[in-house]
């Protein structure tokens, strides 16, 4: 129907309008610090897209955000706000690191899946606690997941600095200092880069690019989650519970069970967030392992309106902004924080615009019937 296309078009249009409005206001801020906004945006694009290795870096940047936003979106679909992706992925990453450095001598085909599985299990353990408290005791998941983030920070600190700290680091003669980190992961636990595969298509990536197979995995996972939520009976129940728990209950859907399964799934996906960095870049977990993916994921999911394919796009957008902000800082001496402002503005606009469009669509549908 014509109207259906109109609604779809509006929904796709919403993020673009938000981006343009955000860019406009950011321009004012850039003007205020005596820089030329056009030049800033031009530099961002040029720096990001001129070279193929830069594009690969953007995809590398986007990978953890895709996992993180997918995990958030599963929660949103059933009406729960899993703000604890942060803690879940840190625990997941640590579990993966643990299996990665403590088991030796396994072939990669067994060791790598085992390490990934450990990450998933870690994320699930950390998401089990809040959902158990919610279903059995009515504890609000926002409170418990936020608190568990802090517990995770401290726990990881303790585990890395005290329990599993690598005390036999060999340093290059007199250079550098000892890192507070776990032992190095076995080579069999490392995720292969995509260089070889891409070279097959004539794309040559330099060595300093760390784009690995977690990126395609995240894309496949997004498709899988779309199928799960929009097509399977479980996904149907998840959405029904998210919109109206009482009606779902009367229809015979066990709300508690849906919450359990859905939240554990969210935690499992969260467990994958840190693995691209761990298994594809650092190969150890240290005190400074990247943080904040969990919160960025909320923003990415918001912009994508919880649509898995939209999440891929908006994660890539965030990856681009990160890359671009490095460019403008290096080349134009424009602080990276400008881009943080841009990101924040985008989020605010998307929330407002989505609300306006949804109200409009509702009125459109009502008018049709009346």
């Amino acid at each position, binding site marked *: *129907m014509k*109207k*259906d296309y109109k609604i779809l078009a509006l929904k796709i249009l919403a993020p673009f309008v938000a981006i343009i409005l955000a860019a406009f206001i950011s321009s004012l801020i850039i003007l205020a610090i005596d820089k030329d906004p056009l030049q800033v945006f031009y530099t961002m694009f040029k720096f990001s897209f001129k070279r193929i290795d830069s594009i690969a870096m953007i995809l590398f940047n986007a990978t953890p955000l895709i996992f993180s936003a997918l995990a958030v979106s599963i929660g949103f679909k059933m009406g729960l706000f899993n703000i604890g992706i942060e803690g879940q992925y840190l625990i997941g990453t640590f579990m993966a690191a643990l299996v990665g450095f403590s088991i030796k001598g396994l072939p990669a085909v067994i060791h790598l899946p085992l390490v990934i599985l450990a990450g998933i299990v870690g994320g699930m353990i950390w998401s089990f606690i809040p959902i158990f408290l919610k279903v059995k005791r009515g504890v609000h998941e926002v409170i418990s997941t936020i608190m568990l983030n802090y517990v995770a920070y401290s726990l990881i600190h303790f585990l890395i600095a005290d329990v599993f700290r690598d005390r036999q680091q060999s340093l290059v003669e007199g250079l550098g200092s000892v890192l507070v980190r776990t032992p190095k992961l076995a080579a069999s636990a490392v995720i292969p880069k995509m260089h070889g595969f891409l070279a097959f298509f004539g794309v040559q990536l330099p060595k300093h690019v760390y784009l690995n197979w977690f990126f395609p995995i995240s894309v496949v996972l997004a498709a899988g989650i779309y*199928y799960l939520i929009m*097509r*399977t*009976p479980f996904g*149907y*129940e998840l*959405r*029904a519970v998210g*919109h*109206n728990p*009482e*009606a*779902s*209950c*009367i*229809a*015979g*859907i*066990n709300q508690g069970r849906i919450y359990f399964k859905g939240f554990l799934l969210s935690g499992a996906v969260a467990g994958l967030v840190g693995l691209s960095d761990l298994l594809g870049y650092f190969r150890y977990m240290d005190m400074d392992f990247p943080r904040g993916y969990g919160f960025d994921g909320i923003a990415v999911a918001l912009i994508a309106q919880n649509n898995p394919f939209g999440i891929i796009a908006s994660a890539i957008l965030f990856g681009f902004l990160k890359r671009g902000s490095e460019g403008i800082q290096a080349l134009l001496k424009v602080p990276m924080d400008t881009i943080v402002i841009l990101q924040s503005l985008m989020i605010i606009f998307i929330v407002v615009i989505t609300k306006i469009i949804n109200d409009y669509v*509702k009125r459109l*549908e*009502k008018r*049709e*019937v*009346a």
Partner: protein
Amino acid sequence: MGKAVELKNITKRFPGIVANDRINLEIQKGEIHAIVGENGAGKSTLMKVLAGLYQPDEGEIFIFGKKEKISSPNKAIELKIGMVHQHFMLVDRFTVLENIILGAEKKKGFTIDEKTCRETLKKLLELYNFKLDLDARLEDISVGHAQRVEIMKVLYRGADILVLDEPTAVLAPQEVDELFINLRRLKEEGKTIIFISHKLDEVLSIADNITVLRRGKAVGTVPADSVTKEELARMMVGKPVLMKLNKTPAEKGEVKLSLRDVMMKGHGGRNVLNGVTLKVCGGEIYGIVGVEGNGQKELAEAIIGLQQDYDGDIKVCGKPTKGLSIKQIRDMGVAFIPEDRHRQGLVLPMKVWENSILGLHRKEEFKKKTSIDIKKAEEFTSRNVKGFSIIISSIHQAIEGLSGGNQQKVILSRELSQEPIVILAAQPTRGLDIGAMEFVHQQLLEKRREGKAVVLISADLEEVLSISDRVGVIFDGEIVAEFTPEETTLEDIGVYMLGAHKKAGESA
């Protein structure tokens, strides 16, 4: 004495329903005027028109003899109309004084002139003989006192016409007495009070005149001292003009649903179900009537399994259902048409086709490997849409855009599609227009002809008497009487509904 309020031909329509249908109403200055009617009769809509919250589609309003247009709640206050809502709109952490003056503070420079406010309030309290501690925090005072705060709020703003929306619903009996003392005092001081209720005893004891609404129409206005409770009840529920439905004689089958001594405790430990015993056979419609809030809701929830915390037995086809999940009970062949379709029957933001398989989504017929067979679900929905003449623009539209009648048809088509054995319909025609209502009745009769056991819980006596084979009257969580429609009069049922006495229920 002049007229305080005069409404002429007030009509208010909502999609699919006329909430107020050409209502004429005259309220004299200085009287307590009660407006009674079942839920959904249009009382609240009418009062919201008066309070400026809704604009009538047609009709005129005269306040103190002058034609007015009440365009907003502020305008209503200007016209000295004050609304005391059923749900209090007060700030818990504020004191009584702060709550009363909130939004109408007297100022001295930049600060609130608390002293002047306090003096004004003290005078008001004295004048109307209200007992209130102005410095108590709202969270520390009783519901009855909180209601006094609400009344003081409108008096403080200078209201001469007070509208009280079901003021006694939240009060304990002695608090009701105190409220009535206050209201009489207000009347002595010349205030006009409009009192909305469906509790007939209260209305008779407090009101001077009573207007009865039914299905959006004003049935009539009577002086309180020349009418009996039974007469009022009859006005409220309508004349038993049995709609001529092609109703064949019942062909009773065996017992499909039986309840024995079902007891359930509600909030605060009071029994909401007090030993309900009934049997419903295949091929009959068992109507349950009663004044709202006498256990109908709890009864339905116990049968479908939403409430499991009861004593006694509920059996479907001879098998006890206690301890089973809602899904298991539904799989035994119990269909449920819930009372509140928005909260309990539908998932409003989801599509029509998604709503029409809610609860059936795990059935074999909608399964395609690991996913839902969307094509089959759409075909199923399209069949229902055709069979039940549901008016929609697309089965892909969100169901919240449908009118109430069409939404109810979606629920009916879904619940009746699975060859149920027991059909539990709670207020299935509430808020529907005549056409949709008749359709629902036809469907229920059709299922009866097919030999299903139908339980119809309704506040509409006319409906129950015209389509039921047997009628049970529920009062205070108990079936106090059982009749066949032929052997009863409306007076009888009215008396039982009000809990006057009991008649031993005959067993089926």
